């Protein structure tokens, strides 16, 4: 993945700031709770939701299992329809290809459809370095771009901003990038949307090159699909002369029929709508209509390595609906930036450490950024068992083991900083395997209980800084059981009460 977020502190530190930022927490809480309730209703309307979810899971699993075959089929279909397919192993290669393709048109600016893939590879920054300006046209992306900010949500990248903040950003920054914001702009949604519309319209009409991602690619026909709410994406897909689509290789579905499932589950899971307001499909090029040149850049960037992992590969089923973010209590409090990647929330916590590896501090902290409450798994429309993958990745961090890196098997050492924990786990396992030792420990604790503090020293301090420890009982249960024969006799000595 790209270097966009390099230098992020590990999750607990990054979250510390967010937890204490009351504006951010208020914005997030309001937004996620609203969409959460709506999603639940939209899902409850569908009588066969469980079957749709299972179908989505199976289609994705089948496709991933035969990814090699479907990718070849896709390339053939796209080529036959007049498009050109490019393969990129990593972010650098993808950026080089896109930069080259834009330069070949002689243009120095592009309009962009909101796309996670281009953010993942840091395309805007790469283009900027080559003197090409990329204009985001999705409203929320525009807010992030104008605010010189980072996205914090998959679907609503500016979810951490409120209306007042957006007004200020528009008033301050729009003139730098094109048409300025109208005089006296207020923070009413209608006025903000109108300001964005006028600002963007100029770009649509002028741009000769469009850059997009895709939600799906249909192997049998070489068709790409984008679903969106605003219609700005459709403008970018149809007006420019050249269209470059940058898509992760896992976005394939075999046939048009398969779309039926996802076009029902995606909108309900993401925006709580029955249907996406705009569903655009494009297949290669067509005479006198739409872009006359079409390039598809297929990116791997860690995906085949992820695919090699039996437990972790289910993360590639993700259709980026963001339902898991909206229900996640950790995301709600930590905010999207704390995850240090374009993929925040529960899916980010399992995807980023797989795509990027667990080598960095932030990536090795992400599998622990969850209480394993399971709310994400419950809402996921393709049934990704996120808690299962989190625990699997914790194992990788804590104990090391075999992983696939750039196609080759390597054996990872345990991540740094886990030695004390590992020793404690081993000691606890030993004590638990020897009930006598456990009992001696319990008794010692009970006898010395007057000396036990309500706060902990060392690493436990973090816990007891905001919570009191329970008082130790005078007698563990097993002693009571033995003394009273399971409560059948009173055992002579007064027990716990």
């Amino acid at each position: 993945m790209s270097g966009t977020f390099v230098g992020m502190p590990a999750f607990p530190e990054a979250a510390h700031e967010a937890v204490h930022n009351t504006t951010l927490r208020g914005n997030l809480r309001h937004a996620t709770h609203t969409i959460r309730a709506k999603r639940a209703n939209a899902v409850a309307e569908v009588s066969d939701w469980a079957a749709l979810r299972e179908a989505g899971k199976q289609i994705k699993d089948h496709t991933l299992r035969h990814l090699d075959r479907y990718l070849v089929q896709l390339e053939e279909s796209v080529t036959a329809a007049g498009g050109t397919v490019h393969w990129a192993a990593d972010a650098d290669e993808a950026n080089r290809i896109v930069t080259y393709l834009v330069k070949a048109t002689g243009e120095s600016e592009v309009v962009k459809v909101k796309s996670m893939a281009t953010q993942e590879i840091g395309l805007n920054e790469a283009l900027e370095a080559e003197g090409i300006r990329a204009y985001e046209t999705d409203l929320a992306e525009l807010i992030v771009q104008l605010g010189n900010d980072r996205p914090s949500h998959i679907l609503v990248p500016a979810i951490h901003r409120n209306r007042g903040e957006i007004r200020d950003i528009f008033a301050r920054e729009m003139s730098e990038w094109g048409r300025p914001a109208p005089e006296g702009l207020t923070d009413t949604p209608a006025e903000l949307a109108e300001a964005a519309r006028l600002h963007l319209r100029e770009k649509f009409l002028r741009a000769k090159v469009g850059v997009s991602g895709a939600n799906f690619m249909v192997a049998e026909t070489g068709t790409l699909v984008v679903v969106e709410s605003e219609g700005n994406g459709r403008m970018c897909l149809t007006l420019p002369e050249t269209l470059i689509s940058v898509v992760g290789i896992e976005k394939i579905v075999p046939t048009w029929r398969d779309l039926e499932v996802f076009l029902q589950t995606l909108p309900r899971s993401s925006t709580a709508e029955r249907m996406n307001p705009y569903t655009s499909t494009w297949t290669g090029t067509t005479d006198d209509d739409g872009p006359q040149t079409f390039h598809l850049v297929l990116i791997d960037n860690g995906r085949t390595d992820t695919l090699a992992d039996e437990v972790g590969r289910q993360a590639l089923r993700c259709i980026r609906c963001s339902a898991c973010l909206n229900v996640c209590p950790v995301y709600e409090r930590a905010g999207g930036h704390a995850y240090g990647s374009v993929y925040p929330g529960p899916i980010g916590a399992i995807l980023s450490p797989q795509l990027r590896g667990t080598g960095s501090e932030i990536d090795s902290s992400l599998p622990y950024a969850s209480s394993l409450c399971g709310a994400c798994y419950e809402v996921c429309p393709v049934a990704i068992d996120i808690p299962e993958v989190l625990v699997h990745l914790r194992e990788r961090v804590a104990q090391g083991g075999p992983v696939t890196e750039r196609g080759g098997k390597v054996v990872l050492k345990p991540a740094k900083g886990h030695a004390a924990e590992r020793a404690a786990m081993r000691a606890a396992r030993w004590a638990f395997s020897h009930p006598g030792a456990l009992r001696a420990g319990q008794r010692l604790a009970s006898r010395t209980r007057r000396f036990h503090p309500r706060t902990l020293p060392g690493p436990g301090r973090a816990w007891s800084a905001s919570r009191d420890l329970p008082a130790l009982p005078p007698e563990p249960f097993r002693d009571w059981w033995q003394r009273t024969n399971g409560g059948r006799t009173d055992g002579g000595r007064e027990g716990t009460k």
Partner: protein
Amino acid sequence: MRVALFLTCVNDTLYPDTGRAVVKLLTRLGVDVDFPMGQTCCGQAHYNTGYRHEAEPLARKFSDVFREYEAIVTPSGSCGAMVRELYPRMGERARAEGRGDGLARTLAPVVPKTYELTEFLVDVLGVTDVGAYYPHKVTYHPTCHGLRSLGLGERPRRLLQAVKGLELVELPGADECCGFGGTFAVKNPDVSAAMGADKVRNAESTGAEVLCAADNSCLMHLGGTMTRLRTDLRPVHIAEILASTEEEPLV
């Protein structure tokens, strides 16, 4: 029926009253309860922190200790979920790693016989009115593993509703995690504490005196948060409420 109490290491050490309550309750309902002394810990903390290999011997030990019983009852949704949901997964992983069927075969017998307490009462004994008396206003927090891994559903609420004198009030945001999550509370203290505080405030807003749950780990986290926030709420395990009677009330 030979029923074993699997109390869990946390309850044994820190919450013996919950264990006594389970014994009292089940005995009252005519169940012959045994507490196998060889029991220790199901291995959940190890497993969920990423130490599956340390958890394996504990799972084997669990199976050794409990396999002969007809039913294994535990007053912990999360340890119940460890046995029912994760033991089979440990077996599968061992198989996938080419270590054969041994672990899966060792663990299989205990999996279907392990019940969380409220499940055992409602599904196995077929009772919802256990003859309890508890004249207090109570709100119920369905803990995550009980709710999502075991699917306890309405069972605990139905049991509480049948308790004489008890007024059950709905907890806003009941399904949201309290923020304990085992080692999560230590590794991400800020987020964990914020989640706990929100849960306590929601419980407070109901005007209840007691916050009840079927897991002492979550109650420990919430109880510790309550004393810090200086609320009048008390954390009480559901087993203690169900064990309380007019003759021997829980104070």
